């Protein structure tokens, strides 16, 4: 199946990526080419096959390792916030959300 211009606008909204109206046709055309490529795997008969969620699955059948739920990291707020575009008093600054 092929995407429509409406689909592209919906995906762009979900992905939080602004697409200019002038770019839309090219984006649509290339997305449809990619979906055309992946289409061939949809016809494969996979009844009774378990999805393989991660590449370690064959030797890690129990899934990912969990550690005890306890605080181990020390406070790193200052170094982590030093790379943020806008902070004040230890808070990340964003445009006002609630009037």
């Amino acid at each position, binding site marked *: 199946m092929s*995407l429509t211009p409406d*689909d*592209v606008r919906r*995906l*762009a909204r*979900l*992905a*939080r*990526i*602004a*697409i200019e109206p002038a770019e839309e046709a090219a*984006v649509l055309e*290339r*997305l449809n*080419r*990619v*979906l*055309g*490529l*992946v*289409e*061939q*795997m*949809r016809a*494969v008969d*996979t009844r009774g*096959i*378990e*999805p*393989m*969620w*991660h*590449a*370690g*699955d*064959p*030797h*890690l059948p129990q899934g*990912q*390792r*969990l*550690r005890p739920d306890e605080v181990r990291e020390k406070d*790193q707020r200052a*170094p*982590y916030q*030093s*790379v*943020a*575009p*806008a902070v004040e008093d230890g808070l*990340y600054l*964003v*445009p*006002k*959300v609630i009037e």
Partner: protein
Amino acid sequence: MLASTVSELSGALASRQISAVELTRACVARIDRVARELNCFISVDEEHALAAARRADERRARGEAGPLTGIPIAHKDILCTRSLRTTCGSRMLADYVSPYDAHVVEQLERAGTVLVGKCNMDEFAMGSSSEASHFGPVRNPWDKRLVPGGSSGGSAAAVAARLVPAATGTDTGGSVRQPAGMCGVSGLKPTYGVVSRYGIVAFASSLDQAGPLAKSAADLALLMNAMAGFDERDSTSLDRPKEDYGRFLDRDLRGLRLGLPREYFGDGIAPGVRAAVAEAVRWYESQGARRVELELPNAGLGVPVYYVIAPAEASSNLSRFDGVRYGHRAAEYRDLVDLYCRTRAEGFGAEVKRRILVGTYVLSHGYYDAYYVQAQKVRRLIARDFAQAFERCDVILGPTSPTTAFPIGAKVDDPVQMYLNDIFTVSAPLAGLPALSIPCGFDGVGLPVGLQLTGSYFSEACLLGIAHRYQQATDWHLRVPRETPL
């Protein structure tokens, strides 16, 4: 000096024929002269490198040096380093300096390597040509009109051009092996979970794995000894006993069962690639290895499956780039959602946006089962094909890529043609298997051809041994690219 392998340099350092400072100076001088025309580095830090080299020499004087102490290396610019910015080849992170080092970076630093710089790459490791970088395309040292492969193309070009004896890369669908093949160097993608992903900016978490690039398989073994190991901070890191990746370098090839999948030798392989790989197979046979013809019936589905799973995971992982916590932020916006949308539109390049949109689609309501879950099921079929194959053979041989390096610009407008480069490399990461690429000759126009060896889980040391024996009998891996003479 720069023509030497890591193993040779390690010996020269140990016997005090050279010092780490001298070696690092030589690397930096050659980078100054050659790197710009290849565009293979994003950052170079001479001052830090020389300080690290001095520490390496002091460590050696104290008698505490290991085999990698004093060896200059470069990291792909997706491994977080505190000392140099980590851009991922993206405008989004063009000025980002990580507050911490990746586990691989720590491990190689602990071993005493000297970090000289960070290598250019396809943005967020999404690409097969190293053209999709905010910092411009990387050029192939064998012919500067051509791509070096990708996404670790800067690392492969830097090693090929003898700028550094070794570099790191990451491999999600072939991003270590494919550029290694196209640049005539050796590169390994380890079994998933062997190398920690901590501090490596995530692209597709269920596939991503860091691996070394160097001239020879013996060098890859030395690097793996430092890079591999359990790390609690990566929940998929495997807690296994430490191993010596060089322990099978002298393995006997007699009786080795060479798996030759029909699907890896079919139509669509360039004649020069086919001939070089066939010649390598004949060499192994001459050493007493035995051919096992086999089939990987679902191999052709690897690319379609990969281009569902990798974009799905990427769309989720890259949602963190929102202009709030780090990286680029748009200058103008109306509200919070507009801030996100404009930041991401400006910060990401076309291929990254395309993959995020594809990933968003295959995970969206109504399509999740048909695309994402279906892809994960076909992925298991691909892994089962390999498991059955490894009951009959010890190693699977084939070309790393269907063609040698292609011209810059040739495939940038056609994502499907670009994705089909990955046809032989995507299956190993989908199944979580180790695989490596070594040079096995040249095509009719003098471009390097990669031979891919894929093994069962945790067979890295065996693969490296099989590759090393070939490199003892051939000198493809020692040829210096014609456009970057020493």
